[in-house]
Each structure stands twice: as C-alpha cells, then as structure tokens.
C-alpha cells in the first residue's frame, strides 16, 4: 500500500482501477460544501 500511495502522490499511478482512482482523486477540487464547524 505504501508504494502505491507514493505512485498516486507522484501522479505516476496509471492503468486499471488504480489509475482511474488517481485521476478521480486529482480531479476533485476542494470546496467549502461541508460542515466547517
């Protein structure tokens, strides 16, 4: 898991479900629509 996490952080995780996750993770921009309390 540790090595895969490093790939995702480095933006070099590609292919298959992991690559799809990495792209989705990177595409979600932060917003404030949350319980900021």
């Amino acid at each position, binding site marked *: 898991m540790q090595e895969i*996490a490093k790939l995702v*952080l480095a933006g070099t995780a590609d292919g298959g479900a992991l690559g799809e*996750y990495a792209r989705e993770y990177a595409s*979600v921009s932060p917003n404030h629509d*949350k319980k*900021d*309390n």
Partner: protein
Amino acid sequence: MGVETALPLLMRMNSYSCALSNRTMDFQQRMFDFGVHRADPDAPAVPCVLVLTRAADREMDALSLELAAKGVRLARIDGDRCVDVPVSVVDDGRITVAGEPFAPRLMWLRHFDLTAIPAPAGHGEYVAGQWDAFLAWAVANPGWRLVNRPARELDRLTQLDGARRAGLTVPRTVLTTEPRRSLSALGDPSGGYVLKPLGSHWLEPEPGSLRSLFPRRVSRADLLAGGPEAGPALVQEFVESDHELRIFIVGDEVVSFRVDKRSAEDLWTDPESVRVTPVEAPGRLVAALRGLCASWGLGVAAFDLLVTEDDYVFLEVNVTGDWLWFEHRAGSASVSEAVLRYVTGAFSAADPAFSEGTG
C-alpha cells in the same frame, strides 16, 4: 403566530443547500476495492490513526493518502457509510473496522454526524442513539489520544467566554429564544446585528442533504418583527471590519490567511469572489490563540477573527474546520503539510515501534 409554528428567523434567512456524496475517495479504504489490501480478522491489530467523519471529508482523504505513503494506517468510520461497514470493539482496546483489527494510537472525531447516518426506516432513533453512545465512549476512552476535544463540548458561548478571558475582544452577544429581547442588551449599534446559530452552521434534514445556517446580518426591524422561537440562537452586535483572518493552529505551527469577502456566506455561495492570501499573524494574537488551544484541548484548530481599524475580534474557533479550500484559493499547502507533520509526530510518539519511511 405561536412558538410551535413560527419558522425561526435564522432558518427564514438561509436558503443555501448542498448535497454531500457518501462515496468514499479515501485511498486506504479504496485499496480494498482494488484488491491491493485484504482484511485478515485474525491478524495482529495494526496501530493506526482512527478518524470518525463522513465520506466527503476531503481533508481526511488527503491525509489518508499522505499517511499511507509514510506507512501509517488510517482507519476510518464515516457516519454516512457506517451502516454498511462492520465495526467491533474488543475490551482490550482493539477495534475491528471492515474486518481488519486496529489498535488506534490517535483518534480524530470530525464530521461523524448522527444526521448523516442512513438508518433503515423505522430504526433511526435506535441507530442514532447507539452511534451517539459509541462516540461518547470513543472520546472518553483513555487509551485513545484525541487530536481535538469534541466540537459539541465547545459551543460558541463557551468559545466567546474563553476568548474574552484570554484577553481577546469579542462581539457583545446574547443567547435567546426571543431575538427582539436582545435589543435592550445590545443597544443600537450603527451596523445592526448578526444572527448566528449556537450549534452547527448546517442542518441535515435527510442524510446527505444539507441546509445552511450561516450567520446573517439583521436589522433592528428584523429583530422586532420576529416573535418567540422554539430554539435559542445568538444575536451579536455587528462589528465593522476591514477583513477577516483564518488562523490555523496545528500543534506548534501556525498558518494564517487573510480572507476578503463581502458576507459570511460568500465562502459557499460565491466562492470565486473570496480572496485568500497568506499572511503573518501578530505574535501577541498567536500567543492568545495558542493558549486557547491548550486550555480547550485542541491540537488542530481554525480560528476566525475580524480585523478592525485597531483590534482583532474573535468570532469563533472551528474544531472540525477545513483547510483545503483556503489552501486552494491561496495557492498554498502549508496547513496540509503542518497537519501531516502533527499527525505523524503524534502517532510516532504513541507508537515507538513506528519508524517513518519503513512502514
């Protein structure tokens, strides 16, 4: 109109709503989906950081990924997913989440809201009551070091009282079920008044559907027109200011942003209009906020303050505040980096066997 039927003024003046998905983006949880990681219920308990929140907590998604890269496990129970994720606690302090035994070294209660739980029809009161009791037990468990005191133990009146005692200026405030009665205590300030909730800034009438309770600027006429209400709210004097400060205290570190906005709800309703700029907060102010964090038991806190012509005015501290949006607007990653250092450090201190880099 009687108390039973009158819609509280704060609800009448709020119309913003949003939906929060319960689809997890948490890296360590998604590893199960990918088959990279498999739970073994008979394996020794894995030391971890335990987070109680909801799926839309992007700050914890990022932390999960960063911690994974350092070899630190993050176990997560989301309020909006908890009915589908098996959880068991053994009386030696282990907790099994989704079939995997963990030994929490650090616990962070964030957005695990009872209102977010998608309980089966007819079981809502039971499910919410049981999870509420679980939360009470979890935060009182002496074996789990807490990042923060629970937000519900630090309501806004308690915050204002503590800030005042720490020497900070706070707005004159009345808690009341009859907003019109606040007028005699607050006088007739030139800028009018601010109405805000004592509790959360959000209602969640259905799991995943949120409705705002943002602070609203109101006039004397607004307050006079309202009658008694069924629940108490805060009425404050409106304080004229030049801008706001959002100051994050993360352990020993401080990250400050200047926030320029036209109204409180701009953060949600018109976020592109809000300017967020990294700034240096004055030492005297930071010292006071550090003192508050120490007395309130907060390891990670987000303070909101007004900057007036000659003073700083404490508004509130957000115990479960977010930071990614502020960083995004400011082009900074300072808070995320500080949180990662804080959590990694606290985990290491509680788990001497952990050596960063080796996993």
